[in-house]
């Protein structure tokens, strides 16, 4: 069981009032709030351990390096990767996907190849592939979605072929909360010798993730959506793939040796071992340490408890929203295929109207396309308002949302 009152005590920002009302934060799919444990870990790092990692022999640098490496270990364990060599720290999901595009796709994809993407992807899992296809000439194909926002698995099966080199899919849609069966997709892709890249930005914070069990090749997620600071994220990759890949960025940290050959007037370069080969330059050490603390916090609660509590909240919200006559909820009706995200609109109002109205009452939720314009086009939405939940949200907050929505309806 999850003790939400105890959890809420850990989040200083939840004591704030906005526009005279207690803050209700329902934009967790965009970013999460941070517990005092994460804030303190970051402060502690800068107050006591800050130095550049892997660069110096002095005590502070050793401490910082150990903490940063430990952060990789904790995160690897959180997703059940084999070890830190499969756990690359990046800025976030977007950078992780771009890393795969440019360190793998740029070198491996040919004109005759295809990359299969679903139409429910966040722009960050569409744009890198469209951009790269202009350089490499391969084709990007889009697996269809059904009217309720769920993935049309048949369409994906129909489109996959021996030409397909990569399948890109969200674990959880950031608009509808639809959970995709990535294990099934990975099995299918591997039958065609295609790799699978999963955008886990909306799943890693909210449910247990076991990359070995899912059998995916790449899994990307962001720290800031799971209690950690912004600017830190993770790319999981299978070791044998990462070893064969070229580096993404060049610079310090990612090299083993750069030696000048005077006869050729060139430098020859060898890469550092994993994961550092993909972490060029001075890393976001403090972000990594914040992420470690966030992972510890979530592990302490238990990801099974997180997923079941959020499901309880989502089901409760979906039920109560039926009491609002002018509110339409989008996405699948079957609660089993979705998790803590509810897209909605209010009759006669744009999504931005809804968000601004709720903001007046201290309720924060997102409006617009949520960086998933193709999905909105397909399900016939001009835009949507989106309530998304996390471990510190309560049924009382959902009740307040309903009360305000009903007030708006009557106005």
């Amino acid at each position, binding site marked *: 069981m999850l003790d939400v009152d105890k959890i809420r005590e850990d989040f200083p920002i939840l004591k704030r009032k906005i526009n005279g009302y207690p803050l209700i934060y329902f934009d967790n799919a965009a970013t999460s709030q941070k517990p005092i444990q994460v804030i303190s870990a970051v402060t502690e790092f800068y107050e006591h351990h800050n130095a550049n990692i892997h660069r110096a022999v002095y005590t502070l640098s050793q401490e910082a390096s150990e903490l940063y490496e430990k952060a990789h270990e904790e995160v690897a364990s959180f997703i059940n990767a084999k070890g830190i060599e499969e756990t690359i720290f990046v800025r976030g999901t977007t950078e992780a996907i771009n890393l795969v595009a440019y360190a793998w796709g740029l070198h491996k994809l040919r004109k005759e190849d295809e990359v299969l993407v679903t139409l429910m992807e966040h722009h960050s899992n569409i744009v890198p592939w469209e951009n790269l296809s202009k350089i490499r000439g391969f084709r990007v194909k889009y697996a269809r979605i059904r009217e309720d926002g769920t993935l049309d698995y048949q369409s994906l099966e129909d489109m996959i072929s021996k030409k397909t080199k990569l399948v890109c899919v969200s674990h959880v849609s950031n608009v509808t909360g639809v959970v995709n069966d990535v294990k099934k997709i990975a099995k299918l892709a591997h039958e065609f010798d295609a790799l699978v890249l999963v955008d886990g930005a909306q799943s890693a914070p909210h449910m247990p993730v076991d990359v070995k069990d899912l059998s995916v090749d790449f899994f990307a997620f962001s720290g800031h959506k799971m209690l950690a600071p912004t600017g830190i994220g993770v790319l999981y990759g299978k070791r044998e793939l990462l070893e064969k890949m070229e580096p993404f960025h060049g610079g310090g940290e990612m090299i083993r040796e750069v030696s000048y050959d005077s006869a050729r007037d060139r430098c020859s370069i060898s890469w550092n071992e994993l994961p550092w080969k993909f972490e060029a330059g001075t890393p976001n050490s403090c972000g990594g340490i914040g992420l470690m603390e966030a992972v510890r916090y979530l592990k302490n609660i238990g990801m099974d408890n997180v997923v079941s509590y959020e499901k309880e909240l989502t089901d409760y919200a979906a039920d109560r929203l039926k009491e609002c006559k002018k509110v339409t909820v989008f996405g699948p009706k079957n609660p089993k295929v979705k998790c803590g995200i509810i897209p909605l609109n209010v009759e006669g109002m744009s999504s931005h109207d809804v968000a*601004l109205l709720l903001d*007046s009452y201290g309720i924060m939720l997102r409006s*617009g*396309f949520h960086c998933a314009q193709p999905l*909105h086009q397909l399900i016939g939405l*001009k*835009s949507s308002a989106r309530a998304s939940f996390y471990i510190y949200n309560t049924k009382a907050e959902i009740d307040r949302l309903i009360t305000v929505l009903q007030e708006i309806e009557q*106005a």
Partner: protein
Amino acid sequence: MSVVDNYVARIDEACGEEKDLIVIFKYDKKDEAIKKILEKAKREKTVSVMIFELTFRNTSFRVYATGKAIFRKLKGKDELRSILTELLS
């Protein structure tokens, strides 16, 4: 400084097919800005004393006591700035 820049911190073109334009007034000028707007625009409806539905020159918009406004169906920021200039002068 133009009259709009005097009162407005930011204008966001919100994403979505509606192309709503969101105006964020400067925090220390928001009450003055809202007062001026309410004097010039026609008030269609008031919700909870903090949300005003208004029209001005055939443009409907909402102003929030929190210091934000949403304008719909405008051609773009230039048209919005022209309306705001009249409202805030």
